[in-house]
């Protein structure tokens, strides 16, 4: 049986941990509300913007109307944007997002150029890439994974201007660096307790049917959009309007993915910290019980000693 002092020390350290987890839980709870409001407010715009993109993409069978709509026959290399968190202590949030992304690449079997958002995600991907390089059994495409850009410390409430750079990198990868397809791996926010890591095709933009063919079971299929006739009118003209609409709406898709991920991260952290607080409290209760027992045992021991002493003195007196 440990001494009361040892138990007391453990109680104190558990209490400290409990205070930290409760503080983190409170911080996340307020962040969650803000992030949730932001994500829900901008979701309709992002969804309709996606619909418009699909309508436009469906126009360009044969000759693409815009470079970002070009569907390439052979996909030799892909680019994956991974959105994860800067910090840990969010349960399985970061690990899940990364696992979803890497398992997608493993099954799609293509060399990937990674663009990462979030320090934790970057670390995990880097470790995964190193493991592939060290492994003797890994397929050749797994040895051709590399991180081409990393971003971190996005503001808590990101705006279009915060994602411009990320989007520039992705466009550059697609247009100039040899990536034939671009995917986004992020965590979809469903509610406080449920978040769903997913991989969405981003570039080239294409109508629903085209994207469903090759990779349907590997990625989340975006909601189906009812296509319209082929003959769109453009005002002022197709080039002007597509140049404006396509990059901007693509940017918004990324921004929305980041907002979804942020909401998910805060929710995951809040739930993880709440669980940790509850475990800490339970542990503290158990330790308190041990402490009481140990204290009682010590007192009993002392009383026995005293009584023993008194008895001994009495015998001496006699």
């Amino acid at each position, binding site marked *: 049986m440990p001494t009361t002092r040892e138990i007391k020390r453990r109680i104190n350290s558990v209490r400290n941990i409990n205070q930290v987890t409760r503080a983190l839980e409170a911080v996340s709870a307020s962040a969650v509300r803000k992030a949730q409001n932001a994500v829900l*407010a*901008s979701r*309709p*715009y992002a969804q*309709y*913007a996606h*619909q*418009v993109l699909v*309508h*436009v993409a469906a126009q360009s069978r044969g000759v693409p109307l815009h470079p970002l709509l070009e569907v390439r026959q052979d996909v030799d290399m892909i680019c994956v944007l991974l959105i994860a968190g800067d910090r840990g202590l969010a349960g399985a949030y970061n690990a899940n997002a990364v696992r979803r992304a890497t398992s997608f690449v493993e099954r799609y079997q293509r060399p990937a150029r990674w663009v990462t958002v979030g320090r934790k995600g970057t670390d995990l991907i880097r470790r995964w890439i190193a493991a592939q390089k060290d492994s003797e059994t890994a397929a050749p495409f797994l040895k051709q994974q590399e991180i081409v850009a990393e971003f971190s410390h996005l503001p808590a409430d990101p705006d279009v201007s915060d994602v411009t750079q990320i989007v520039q990198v992705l466009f550059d990868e697609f247009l100039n660096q040899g990536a034939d397809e671009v995917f986004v791996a992020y965590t979809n926010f469903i509610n406080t307790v449920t978040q769903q890591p997913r991989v969405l095709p981003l570039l080239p933009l294409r109508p629903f049917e085209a994207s469903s063919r090759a990779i349907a079971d590997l990625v989340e299929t975006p909601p189906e959009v009812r296509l*319209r*006739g082929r*003959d*769109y*009118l*453009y*005002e*002022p003209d197709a080039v002007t*309007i597509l140049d*404006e*609409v396509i990059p901007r709406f693509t940017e*918004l898709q990324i921004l929305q993915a980041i907002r979804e991920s942020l909401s998910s991260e805060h929710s995951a952290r809040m739930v993880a910290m709440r669980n940790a607080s509850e475990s800490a409290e339970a542990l503290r209760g158990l330790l308190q019980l041990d402490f009481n027992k140990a204290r009682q045992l010590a007192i009993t021991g002392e009383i026995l000693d005293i009584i023993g002493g008194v008895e001994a003195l009495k015998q001496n007196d006699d």
Partner: protein
Amino acid sequence: MPLEVEVVSRVRQLYHTENADMVLIPGSEGELGVLPNHTPLLTTLAFGELRVVEGDAINSFVVYGGVVDVGPHKVIVLADDAESVSEINMSDVEEARARARRLMEESPAGDQRAMIAQELRRAEIAAKIYQRVGGPSGRRIRTVEEDE
């Protein structure tokens, strides 16, 4: 078959209906009226008033740029920013206008100038539309028949 109309801005969904008879859109190439079965059209939005005509009612919005996707049965208005005319607070608008004018007189340079000019244009358009429609209380709704 009536038109389905969706008005969203970057930060929220402003309006949804499935029973519109006509939408009047401030396109960058001029105002256009959209009736059901319009040919598919994609156009940019100017700053101006967007009107959704639904039976006897006209819902007015002020939109500040954006894109509109017109289909035979559905119109999606994706505004960079937008507000319902009934939400406009005239004193805020006046204040914004005065502030923008004051800043303009300090003759700022480059980007800032463009931003302030944009602000000023916004405030002026909001004020104009508000006055034409008559504000939240005096909104006498014209019907399409009356127009004809």
